[in-house]
């Protein structure tokens, strides 16, 4: 695949050392290139990339509010269309909070209306920017500041909201999951999403050193562990056709993934086994 040497996301941004979100944005923009307009929901990415009066973006970028990134993108797409600029790509970067919780209705509307845009959810599995509060995308068992572990609370006691499947239920032409640790797979999916006519949704898992609690050097390793243990599955749904795009040669124990992170430190062996059997059930169904 032809990828640009050029960077469209400048250094000097305020992301934590070892940030996964910025890796995801860099890789996506390398595929999409210069003729792209980006929209962000409120979140880590918006805050770290645009400390006024500076911006890290080398392409036009817009942020309005937490809940309406998809609505803003719809407007931008419609405006470009009316100007005849149909070769310009419109891409949204929303965090898991801005996508699965706060921005869900705007996103659902944009998908329903069939705007020609790409929505990339960079999923770090909690509201990291405001101090690690749980979101709908926080996985079962994770300790966050609003789902803490302790005598009275176990940590997050609800399963992770299945965002990509909610998007697939809209009948949009392209839905995929991805991980920053598998850049080729992710970039192929971004390319497909750009080529498809109509809305495309990519759910990108990206480890967060601050919120997950691990050494910043391990960001890529953690993303890899999620996929190799079957905790995060890479697939795509093209015109309704479901396909797993990466299968680990030998699926590793979920414990390897859980034990590497502070947010799962409190889990007992029994709880870890419960998570393992949940992962097993999904992986067996998908023949992973």
């Amino acid at each position, binding site marked *: 695949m032809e990828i640009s040497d050029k960077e469209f996301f*400048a*250094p000097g941004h305020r*992301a934590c050392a070892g940030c996964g979100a910025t*890796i995801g944005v860099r890789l996506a923009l390398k595929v999409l290139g210069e003729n792209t307009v980006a929209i962000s929901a409120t979140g880590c990415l918006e805050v770290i990339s645009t400390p006024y009066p500076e911006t890290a973006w080398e392409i036009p970028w817009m942020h309005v509010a937490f809940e309406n990134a998809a609505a803003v993108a719809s407007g931008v797409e419609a405006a470009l269309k009316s100007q005849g600029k149909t070769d310009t790509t419109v891409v949204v970067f929303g965090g898991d909070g801005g996508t699965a919780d706060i921005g869900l209705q705007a996103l659902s509307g944009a998908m329903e209306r069939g705007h020609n845009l790409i929505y990339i959810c960079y999923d770090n599995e909690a509201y990291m920017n405001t101090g690690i509060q749980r979101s709908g995308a926080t996985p079962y068992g994770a300790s966050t500041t609003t789902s803490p572990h302790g005598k009275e609370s176990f940590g997050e006691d609800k399963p992770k909201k299945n965002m990509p499947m909610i998007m697939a239920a809209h009948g949009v032409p392209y839905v995929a999951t991805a991980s920053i640790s598998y850049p080729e797979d992710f970039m192929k999916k971004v390319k497909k999403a750009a080529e498809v006519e109509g809305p495309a949704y990519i759910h990108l898992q990206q480890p967060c050193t601050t919120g997950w609690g691990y050494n910043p*050097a391990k960001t890529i390793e953690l993303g890899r562990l999620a996929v190799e243990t079957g905790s995060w599955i890479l697939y795509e749904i093209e015109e309704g056709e479901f396909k797993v795009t990466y299968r680990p040669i030998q699926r590793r124990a979920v414990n390897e993934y859980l034990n590497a992170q502070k947010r799962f430190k409190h889990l007992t062996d029994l709880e870890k086994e419960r998570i393992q059997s949940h992962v097993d059930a999904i992986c067996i169904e998908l023949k992973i």
Partner: protein
Amino acid sequence: MVSVGAAVKEPGSTRKNKTGSWRTFKPILDKEKCIECENCIMFCPEGCINKDYDIDYDYCKGCGICEEECPVKAIKMERE
């Protein structure tokens, strides 16, 4: 017209902010050992390793992902 919101007219202007000062450990890349696999270029959160494998220390925050992901151990983190 009442002006709402804010506009930044200089793309990539965060370059004014040299995040290299955040660093405690500095990656040193040995070009003799390097096999040009591009892992470090792809995975750098700052995008501050260029295609000639020169690291821009003005911006490198010293996260250590490049050392971790180098398959031939051509990058070593050294204390500043």
